């Protein structure tokens, strides 16, 4: 086959065409991968969000007519939600619950991950045991806990035996403790999630900085605080954010154990939204409430993304000189 000689001007032009063609192929490939997600968004999420938006701006009283005949009320429902003290309390309870349980999950999960970071005999057995709570259905967690948390139940009994005191806490009936009870159950249920993420993070930490610190005579404590934790910051942030978002949406345990009570001690956002929508059948107010909560969650996610990017940049900067040296 005869090969035509290319002029010096034609060579970069051909290369640029190839590059453009490759870029198009990469774009097509990315689009193909994203297509199911886009389809899911367009066909499932968009109609639901649109309908919910419609309800948020229309007062539909379920007993009086069909939803398409509902009266347009503008922003009245949003105003009604934002001026509803019960909603405000529900936001505060959810934030307190999510913060407390996230910190609890993280601290215990990180501690377990640190203990499990280096292999030892029986490692796999402990690993299985530690992730078991996450595999337990939340409602089962609630009903099992209920039996253990009565005033005369085994939990108070064990604490009394260990401390020698007559420990008589009403985990389930005291409105000042009820939310803490759910938070403790949440920590038990979801610590494995933080544990797995932190274990993966610890496994990915480069060994060189730790070895260098050891050679320089740094204590284990100092290595942990000054080498490992800074390197783990993006993973820590991810573990905290994901757990926090999940905790904000916690419903099954709270509902199964308390249904918002005693009093209104456990009326968190998901509980209040459920009650508004399906107990009081205020579908429109429930929709407006859900939108406000969605905006709150989006704000939290945006802050989290911003922080994650900042962490990534700082890590990149930390490694850049080593890369140049290499």
């Amino acid at each position, binding site marked *: 086959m005869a090969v035509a000689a290319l002029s010096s001007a034609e060579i970069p032009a051909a290369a640029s065409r190839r590059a453009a063609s490759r870029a198009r192929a990469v774009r097509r490939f990315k689009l193909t991968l994203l297509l199911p997600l886009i389809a899911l968004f367009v066909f499932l999420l968009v109609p639901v969000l649109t309908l919910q938006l419609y309800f948020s701006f229309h*007062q539909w*009283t*379920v*007993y*009086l007519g069909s*939803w398409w005949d509902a009266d347009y009320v503008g922003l009245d429902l949003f105003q009604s939600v934002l001026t509803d003290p019960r909603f405000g309390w529900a936001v505060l309870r959810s934030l307190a619950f999510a913060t407390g349980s996230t910190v609890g999950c993280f601290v215990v999960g990180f501690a377990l991950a640190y203990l499990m970071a280096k292999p030892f005999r029986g490692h796999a057995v402990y690993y299985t045991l530690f992730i078991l709570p996450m595999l337990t259905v939340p409602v089962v967690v609630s009903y099992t806990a209920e039996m253990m948390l*009565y*005033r*005369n139940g085994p939990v108070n009994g064990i604490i009394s035996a260990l401390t020698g005191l007559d420990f008589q806490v*009403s985990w*389930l*009936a*005291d*409105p000042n403790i*009820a939310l803490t009870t759910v938070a403790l159950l949440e920590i038990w249920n979801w610590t494995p999630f933080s544990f797995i993420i932190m274990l993966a993070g610890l496994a990915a930490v480069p060994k060189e900085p730790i070895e260098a610190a050891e050679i320089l005579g740094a204590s284990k404590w100092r290595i942990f605080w000054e080498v490992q934790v800074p390197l783990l910051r993006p993973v820590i942030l991810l573990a905290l954010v994901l757990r926090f978002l999940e905790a904000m949406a916690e419903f099954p345990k709270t509902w199964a*154990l*308390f*249904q*918002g*009570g*005693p*009093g*209104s*001690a456990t009326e968190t956002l998901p509980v209040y939204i459920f*009650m508004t929508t*399906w*107990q*009081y*059948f*205020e*579908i429109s107010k429930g929709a407006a409430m859900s939108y406000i909560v969605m905006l709150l969650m989006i704000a939290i996610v945006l802050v989290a993304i911003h922080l994650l990017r900042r962490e990534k940049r700082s890590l990149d900067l930390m490694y850049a000189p080593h890369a140049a040296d290499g």
Partner: protein
Amino acid sequence: MARRSISRRHFIEGGVGLTVANFLPGTTPLAFAATMEERTVAAAKSAGPADVSGMIWSPYLVPMQPVIAEFKKQTGIGVGAVQDISIFDAPQRAMAEALSHSPQFDFIHIDSNMIPSLASAGYLEPLDEYIKNADFHYDVVAGYDNFMKYGGHTYGVPTDGNVHIQYTRKDLLDNPDNKKRFADKFGTELKVPETWEENLRLQEFLMDPSKDLYGSGNLRNRANGVTWWYMIFYSAGGFPFDDDMKPTLNTPAGQYAVDIYLQDKKVNHPEAANWGTPQMIPRIAQGHVVSCQYWDGTCKTIKNPQQSKTAGQFYFSVVPGSNFTGKLVHRSISSPLAAILVNKYSPRKAQAAYLALWLGSGKNSIPIVSDPVNAFNDAWSNAHFAAPPVIDAYTQDGINAIKKNFEVVAPPIYLTGYLEFQDALAKNLSEAYVGQLAAKDVLKNTEDEWTKIIGRIGRSKLKQDLASYKAAMPKLAVPA
């Protein structure tokens, strides 16, 4: 008018024709049906065989199955797919079905107090025509069938009466030492309480927390506690709305009811604020309670030695009443009153309706309400009160008490928006019980919330509903 002569031949042919027609399917049984059950079968046959689908909690369904099997044998109508949902979660699911006009369930088994809400949402099939076709009659105590009626139509068939009766410990009351101490202290006889005040005094006197014996076994959790409040409120002459649908809770009768309701804290278990039936029934049956008002099915549990340590140790009687109006008035409550309702959008609504009538016959439901193991369906029909298996399950004293309480039984808020109204009151009562809200604010806050609900649902619509609510209220002050 043209005059037509009838020949002897035509007369004989007509007679033969009528005789033949009488034996055709769908006509014969009607002509010959004698009992209500036979008439129901006859009417059901005309609807054709089908397996109907339903939403029902399995503890209710299990004892119904032999009765359903018999109906299937006789008519070809049985129960196919079933969604097993707790009676407490059923209202939410039923309303979702109503809003989507779903034909998924042919029948739903649910608290009948949801009838106004579900009928207003257009979900319920009126049963009047089916009742007429089968010449069905509710064999119940005075006016209890009004619990199934709304807006001039009948919508449900009860399967579980769920009336509250009074349980008082016989062994403690009859103890000579207790009798003497009580007489010495109060100058009056220790006996089954007639009023709420007597009940509290007795509970306080006999309780002994050091022996894990508490005065009260009443529920005070957010989900159920409100049921007890209605009894006190109604017995004090209260009714929650005036004729113009303005809330009338914040009245002396209402405050009296809140006061009695909250005093229970002195005599109930410290964890009662979050306890429901799964916690309280075992305590009653195991002897940790002096007295309480509870659903009538607990008679069966107490009597069953495999589930109880207190068999024979309880007096069963009418719930306490009040002299608040100047004369003694007793008011019991039936909630949740489990009933079968039929979906208007169902393609098999006739079959579902006739199945409901079959299950709602007093005679057919005797094995259902007397099942000692699956004890969720409680006696409600006059036929039950005379049936040996039912008497055996509840004891004669239990049956007498149930019957008397039915004479003074009232519904909770029997209006469109029942759950909204009830939960607002329940939340405020629960907050007051645990100290989150001052007792004086319970009724004021509830009235404010109710006014908003009335505004949303519509005052004129609710004013129409009031007639059905009032019709369901008992007429007797004290059982005969």
